[in-house]
């Protein structure tokens, strides 16, 4: 079963359109949404959760249409938004009590364990938390009710590298269960590169690319050469290119290149930046 299926999803605002988005997240996998500010990542997440109305298209979450029974489906979804949204006067202990009466499968022991693991104080009001601590509390809540799907909007931003590493590890552990899946959007592409099975690039509301990460990294490569050397390559092998003071850099399709050409591996971040700049 797919944890998430998005078909022809469209949403228009004045000056912005999320245009005909198609994405699929198989169960047990992690899908990373990569995009610059205003690319449509948060809009996509809000549409999945039925927080805003779609203009057209369908969204199926954990096998159910998100319009019909989204309230019940949300019992099985853990969400962390870029601004966590917990009331400022509440302590972590009070948040636990509120959530106990919110989620049917709330697990007090798991929540306490996560608070301890993430070094979060029990009785300090939320407003006194640092941004990193706020994110950690959001993550602890999202992971304490046996969710099958985690939706994380910039959930690793604001965390220091050590905690980020720990949190990324927690997400990785979460998907060891093949019924568990994660949709994560982040500016920190290195986290997504480490975590994700699938990667989707969004740019100005349009899906530039959606592919299995390993296939993507195997398919594409980076070459650095002179302009003449680049011209000599088959046009269909060059996906995008840029000039720098030392010559040319190009993202190439490995399979379309003649043999004997030296190709360096490309990172997801490099690929994304290349593709976005090419569009501009």
């Amino acid at each position, binding site marked *: 079963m797919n944890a998430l299926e998005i078909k022809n999803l469209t949403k228009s605002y004045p000056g912005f359109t999320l245009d005909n988005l198609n994405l699929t997240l198989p169960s047990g996998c992690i899908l990373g949404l990569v995009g610059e500010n205003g690319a449509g990542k948060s809009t996509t997440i809000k549409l999945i959760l039925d927080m805003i109305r779609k203009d057209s298209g369908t969204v199926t979450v954990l096998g159910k249409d998100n319009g019909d029974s989204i309230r019940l489906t949300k019992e099985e979804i853990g969400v962390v938004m870029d601004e966590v*949204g*917990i009331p400022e006067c509440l302590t972590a202990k009070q948040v636990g009590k509120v959530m106990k009466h*919110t989620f049917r499968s709330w697990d007090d022991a798991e929540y306490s364990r996560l608070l301890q693991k993430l070094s979060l104080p029990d009785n300090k009001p939320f407003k006194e938390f640092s941004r990193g601590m706020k994110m950690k509390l959001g993550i602890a809540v999202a992971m304490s009710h046996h969710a099958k799907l985690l939706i994380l909007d910039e959930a690793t931003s604001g965390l220091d590298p050590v905690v980020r590493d720990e949190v990324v590890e927690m997400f990785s552990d979460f998907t060891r269960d093949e019924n568990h899946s994660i949709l994560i959007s982040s500016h920190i592409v290195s986290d997504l590169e480490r975590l994700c099975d699938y990667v989707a690039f969004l740019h100005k509301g349009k899906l530039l690319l959606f592919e299995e990460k390993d296939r993507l990294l195997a398919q594409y490569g980076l070459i650095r050469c002179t302009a003449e050397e680049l011209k000599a390559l088959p046009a269909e092998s060059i996906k995008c290119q840029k000039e720098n003071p030392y010559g040319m850099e190009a993202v190439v399709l490995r399979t379309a290149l003649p043999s004997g050409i030296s190709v360096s591996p490309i990172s997801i971040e490099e690929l994304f930046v290349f593709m976005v700049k090419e569009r501009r």
Partner: protein
Amino acid sequence: MKGLLLKDWYMMKKYCRAYLVIAVVFIAVSLVSNDNMFFVFYPCLLCGMIPVNLLGYDERSRWMQYSGTLPYTRAQIVSAKYLIGLLAQLVTMIGIGTVQGIKMSVTGDFVPGEFAVLMLLLLIVSTLTSSISLPFVFKLGVEKGRISYYVMIGFVCGASVLVSGLLGGQQQVEMSPNAILAALAFVGIGVYSLSWYLSVVFYKKREI
């Protein structure tokens, strides 16, 4: 919905202490003040604004968005605010009612029918504030909603001055306390229910 109510309870405990202090002071002053109903009604008016103020804090902390990710319907989110408001209004009414009841008994002015009308009137005054303001707030957000509420109140006050001016010369209809009680209860429940319904409709349409 228990979770929503509990969250609002925690917020009320933290942010509404000033209301409690003002209500206690006004209730105490109403004990010694003769025939000045301002001290009796003012705490109720203030109390009617509690749900709107809680929504203000919700908006500031982005709880409105976060609650959209939790397993609650929009109707439950709206209903929680009406219920917590009603609870605060009932507590205020009971507080004022107890003190006024004792005062009336001591001075020998206690008439059960008139006392019941006064209590119901207190409850309606406090629910009316939230009944009128909440649909605006759920439709437009706290800031725009508050402005719309004040415009609306100005309009209603102007209209009532105009109407009372027009009817000033006419003979007033005498009503028994029981009839007044029934009419007040009917108006109060009707306005609160209509307000709740409008808020649910508006909030369901709002994109958060």
